[in-house]
């Protein structure tokens, strides 16, 4: 892996920024995550090495995938292309973070990084040049929905970073779309800071093409009385990891997560979530669905951490999985780490196949097996897709999932 050699010899990127220097410095001593650690042990080593095999590309080639038509009342930003934005209206404002603000926020984050848990972020911030980092601060209400795109380029490794600070009482809907290209790797790291009483309804849709790889890391800090809703969907990647790290910094916040990953052929897609309650009265409702077909492998590992300070936490985590083939594999591990004694926490996991009796019922009504399976799958997906905000209809997500191979 050329990239690892370059990290070791400090030749990964030229004209390093201070943040790149800090991250490269951290990576130099151990450039790869520990393959025996809980977060990496199931990761397919050969696929992971494919991710790292592409050379770093700071300049994006012209992106030729047509985006769905933009709605007039949606703000659309493409990281690395048109990141200049300054909107100051009567009831809201969206402005870019100054270089100083951005540096300070990222450095604060890095200071808390763990080599294994944040390896994806360390790599991302080592690679992301200034052009590919979008930092925004948003305040106000009645803000138009926002779409933010990150995309890879063929035969290269691209890194994109998004930092958003939501100021007090702010309420936004944001759809983040990560698009893979043929034989490409995309490293996407996202950092959200939700101030008191703010609400973020966030959608993440990541879909690739043949031989696409993705490391997608999402870090959220929630102050009290903030509300974070996440609907996510990852599909069609040779190798993808979605790492979610949420911290309710003072408790008294609400987090709702509905995520899904779909694997086919010999793909491997995994979701790792860590929800840390750092104060009382925190709330979490999480469901993660996996669907694995052919010879693919889907992984979910979720951890909920409830320290002594987090009394009256109410947390629920459910992993529901559908195996469509005898050769497909699903690993799921929802887990709780509870120190506080006055909490309501539950977790569970199910793995099943398409329901034969449901299929037979539909077939006795003249619906073919293929149509019946599609109907059943669409009902399985619907719960998640309906939770993804902003223009989900224009993205025809359900059609994409059901019809693409």
């Amino acid at each position, binding site marked *: 892996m050329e990239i690892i050699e370059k990290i070791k010899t400090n030749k990964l990127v030229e004209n390093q920024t201070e943040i790149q220097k800090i991250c490269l410095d951290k990576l130099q001593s151990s450039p790869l995550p520990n393959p025996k650690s809980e977060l990496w042990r199931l990761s397919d080593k050969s696929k992971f090495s494919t991710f790292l095999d592409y050379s770093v590309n700071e300049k994006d080639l012209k992106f030729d995938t047509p985006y769905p038509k933009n709605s007039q009342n949606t703000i659309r930003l493409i990281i690395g292309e048109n990141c200049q934005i300054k909107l100051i209206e009567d009831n809201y404002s969206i402005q870019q973070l100054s270089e100083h603000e951005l540096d300070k926020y990222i450095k604060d984050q890095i200071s808390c990084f763990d080599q294994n848990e944040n390896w994806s972020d360390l790599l991302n911030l080592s690679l992301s040049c200034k052009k590919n980092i979008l930092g925004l601060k948003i305040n106000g209400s009645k803000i138009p929905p926002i779409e933010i795109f990150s995309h890879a380029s063929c035969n290269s490794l691209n890194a994109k970073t998004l930092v958003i600070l939501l100021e007090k009482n702010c309420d936004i809907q944001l759809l983040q779309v990560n698009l893979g290209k043929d034989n490409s790797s995309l490293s996407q790291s996202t950092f959200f800071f939700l101030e008191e009483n703010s609400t973020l309804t966030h959608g993440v849709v990541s879909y690739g093409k043949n031989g696409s790889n993705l490391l997608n890391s999402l870090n959220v800090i929630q102050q009290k009385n903030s509300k974070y809703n996440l609907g996510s969907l990852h599909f069609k990647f040779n190798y993808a990891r979605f790492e979610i790290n949420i911290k309710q910094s003072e408790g008294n916040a609400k987090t709702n997560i509905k995520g899904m990953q779909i694997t086919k052929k010999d793909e491997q897609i995994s979701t790792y979530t860590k929800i840390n309650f750092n104060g009382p009265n925190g709330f979490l409702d999480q469901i993660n669905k996996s669907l694995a077909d052919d010879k693919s492998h889907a992984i979910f590992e979720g951890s909920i951490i409830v320290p002594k300070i987090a009394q009256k936490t109410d947390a629920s985590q459910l992993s529901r999985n559908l195996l469509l083939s005898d050769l497909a594999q699903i690993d799921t591990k929802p887990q709780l780490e509870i120190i506080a004694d006055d909490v309501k926490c539950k977790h569970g996991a199910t793995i099943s196949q398409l329901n034969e009796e*449901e299929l*037979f019922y*539909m077939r006795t009504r003249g*619906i073919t097996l293929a149509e019946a399976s599609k109907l059943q799958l669409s009902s399985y997906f619907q*719960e998640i897709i309906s939770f993804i905000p902003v223009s989900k209809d224009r993205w025809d997500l359900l059609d994409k999932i059901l019809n693409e191979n």
Partner: protein
Amino acid sequence: MQSQMKESDPILEVKNLFASTNNLPILKGVSLAVYPGEIHAIMGRNGCGKSTLSKIIAGHPSYNITDGDIKFSGENINALEPEERSQAGIFLGFQYPIEIPGVSNLEFLRVSTNARRKFLNKEELDTFDFEELVKEKLELVKMDQAFLSRSVNQGFSGGEKKRNEILQMALLEPKIAILDETDSGLDIDALRIVASGIKKISNAQTGIILITHYQRLLDEIEPNYVHVMADGQIIKTGGSDLALELEKKGYEWTDNFVKET
């Protein structure tokens, strides 16, 4: 009684049918012929093979036909898929209608109806035309339009599920309907609504098989023939008076038949 001369050919003919699941024999030589306009009732203890017979006629993939034939309109349908049987005009009303969360009842009914209409070379209906049709059929089973916007059978009461089955029967206009314990779990009013719906849908060209334990459904819909099943076979066939006899005698005597055979 089945040997009487009939003017037309049977809609459904089951000939010496043997079937098993997981190598366990369930049906052990069932023969039955249903002619246009006829109503047959099949009665018997739990586990005697009544529901299995209905599922096998509908093409359930978990059962293997080891011997015998099922003929529908003169054609052997042993190898047909369940959807092909349905499209051709075989309807199975489920004892326990399946809930399908997330699939809207209206869309489910429309897709089903269009599959049957396509087979009949009738024009497929778009959502607007279908809504007109379904409103008319809802009247038959006294169902509210609100049922259409819900997921298939999800959150329906037992009676609502059974009425939804009869609604499907009305929309699909089958040549033969096999109704598996459609009366179970119904109160008297619901039973009357369901029975009245069945009577309105059936005509001189259709056949009906009612699988039931009780006389009360047969009070509403008088069968031409009553068959008693035990241990995977039809052991006795008679007229509607046989059902009354069963009501008095129970099924104990069928155990003796099983022991003797």
